[in-house]
């Protein structure tokens, strides 16, 4: 029976590269995917692109491509990635340049566009925003970006066009894996509902890379992971019936067992009977997993029920500014002094009429002030003197408390008031504060609308890197 081997080289924009190289060298892979787009990554990419037309793709593209390009030809591994972000064409051009620089030739690079519908956003003004239920045109600020979650179609076309590397903008995360499976096995949603369900699940398990091989799993004494420091990334071996095995390469750190796989099956899904992707409405409710050997888990039983008539579009917009300030208090009564400081800050913000839309106060702490020996002595004493007014904690053993004040503002200059007021606690606040810090962040948020799937068309273009010659579109 034919088997296709797909590895995962990245689970987020800044992921480690070493496990990807290890997979490409030792995994006998047919394909490797690099999933590098979080919900608002593209909006940030659009802001990069606005400053420089040739940017807007993944900031680690150079770093990653320098390591993986030589292995694409040497080991015959095709690469599929959404590192194109807001600018797949420039990402492809830069990749071609790097390939020439590295002497990697005979390379066909495809880039997939069509997800960016920023220019057409005007026609969707009356479409309701998922998060608020209000029409898009009532959004508080002008949109910065609008990108549709495309399915596997464009990548599939690129693979049919014999691309060695496929670079996309926004596509659904599982599409990176679904496309090569459709290409290899000829599956489609009408005739292969079970196989397409399995394809979505395979993509879902790969898209966070190390999270299925023991990353985000270790809990000493409860869940052990050997050699977490050299965590290997996953690969799936998929058969023509859609049944697949999750595994990793021999000698890598981490673990693949039924529990790592179960955790990742449920990760970031809502209703397991209707996991919506552009390519299929997947149903994981009847999935079964079975340990089939050391670091090998067999996965079967995913289904699908057609595919949605609409596609989700993420719209990015400048939302607000968040100002944050922090100050630490130690020893007995630290919590009471931190609470007093918080009360002072709240009253001072009122006094100066700071236009804060929302305020949050936190109390954080273990050993940042007194290191471990003294901190442990205080914790183990089970007792610090805490004057807490109505909220008295009689035996707390709290070695330190870090006050954190965070507020939301419409304008940057006002957001700085929080850090200023927290710093002023040195000379104007309770006894014994230390380590003040403050910062202001600009917040780009995302909202979603749905558009008819027919209105989104993937387009594919190619660059070829030939021996000694330039690239050719």
């Amino acid at each position: 029976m034919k088997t296709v081997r797909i590895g995962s080289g990245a689970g987020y924009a800044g992921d480690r590269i070493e496990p990807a190289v290890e997979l490409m060298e030792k995994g006998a892979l047919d394909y490797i995917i690099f999933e590098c787009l979080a919900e608002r990554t593209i909006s940030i990419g659009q802001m990069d692109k606005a400053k420089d037309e040739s940017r807007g793709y993944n900031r680690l593209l150079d770093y990653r491509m320098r390591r993986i390009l030589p292995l694409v030809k040497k080991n015959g591994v095709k690469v599929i990635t959404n590192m194109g972000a807001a600018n797949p064409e420039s990402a492809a051009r830069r990749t071609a340049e790097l390939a020439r620089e590295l002497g990697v030739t005979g390379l066909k690079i495809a880039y997939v566009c069509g997800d960016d519908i920023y220019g057409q956003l005007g026609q969707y003004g009356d479409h309701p925003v998922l998060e608020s239920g209000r029409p898009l045109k009532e959004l508080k600020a002008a949109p910065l970006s609008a990108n549709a979650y495309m399915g596997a179609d464009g990548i599939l076309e690129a693979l049919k066009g014999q691309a060695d590397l496929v670079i996309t903008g926004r596509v659904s995360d599982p599409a990176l894996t679904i496309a090569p499976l459709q290409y290899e096995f000829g599956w489609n949603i009408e005739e292969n509902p079970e196989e397409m369900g399995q394809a979505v699940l395979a993509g879902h398990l790969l898209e966070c890379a190390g999270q299925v091989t023991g990353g985000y799993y270790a809990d000493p004494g409860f869940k052990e992971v050997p050699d977490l420091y050299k965590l290997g990334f996953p690969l799936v071996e998929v058969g023509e019936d859609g049944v697949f095995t999750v595994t990793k390469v021999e000698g890598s750190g981490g673990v693949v067992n039924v529990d790592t796989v179960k955790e990742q099956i449920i990760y970031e899904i809502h209703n397991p009977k209707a996991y919506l992707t552009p390519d299929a409405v997947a149903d994981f409710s009847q999935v079964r997993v079975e340990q089939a050997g050391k670091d090998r888990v067999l996965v079967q039983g995913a289904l699908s029920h057609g595919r949605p008539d609409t596609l989700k579009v993420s719209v990015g917009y400048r939302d607000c500014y968040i100002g944050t300030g922090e100050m630490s208090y130690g020893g007995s009564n630290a919590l009471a002094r931190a609470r007093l400081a918080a009360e002072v800050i709240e009253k001072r913000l009122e006094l100066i009429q700071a236009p804060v839309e929302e305020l949050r106060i936190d109390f954080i702490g273990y050993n940042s002030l007194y290191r471990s020996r003294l901190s442990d002595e205080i914790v183990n004493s089970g007792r610090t003197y805490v004057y807490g007014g109505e909220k008295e904690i009689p035996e707390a053993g709290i070695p330190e408390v870090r006050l954190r004040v965070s507020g939301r503002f419409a304008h940057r200059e006002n957001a700085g008031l929080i850090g200023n007021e927290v710093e002023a606690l040195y000379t104007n606040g309770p006894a014994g504060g230390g380590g003040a810090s403050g910062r202001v962040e600009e917040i780009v948020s995302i909202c979603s609308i749905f558009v008819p799937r027919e209105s989104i068309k993937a387009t594919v273009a190619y660059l070829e890197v030939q021996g000694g010659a330039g690239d050719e579109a």
Partner: protein
Amino acid sequence: MKLKEIAHARTGDKGDISNISLIPYKEEDYELLLHQVTADRVKEYFSEICHGEVARYELPGIKAMNFVLDHALGGGVTRSLALDRHGKTLGMALLEMEIADLDGF
């Protein structure tokens, strides 16, 4: 006993919605979890954090469940004022929930 002794969890986020898986180490404990860890109980448990509805979904094939907490991330991952904007640590809090042990069940 605490849930921590018989189950593990992982937390994910989408917008202002948190999802927490709850997975027994031993599949025979699944029924006990189904009886005791209801959506209502989880909603009550997280009432200071989750300001919307809680739904529980079952995955009988892998003997696990998924809690979906609406309005649980301070307005959403991008704009939350919390230190842990993704609410990634919420699963570990769920495992602190007290349940009746097997004898009392």
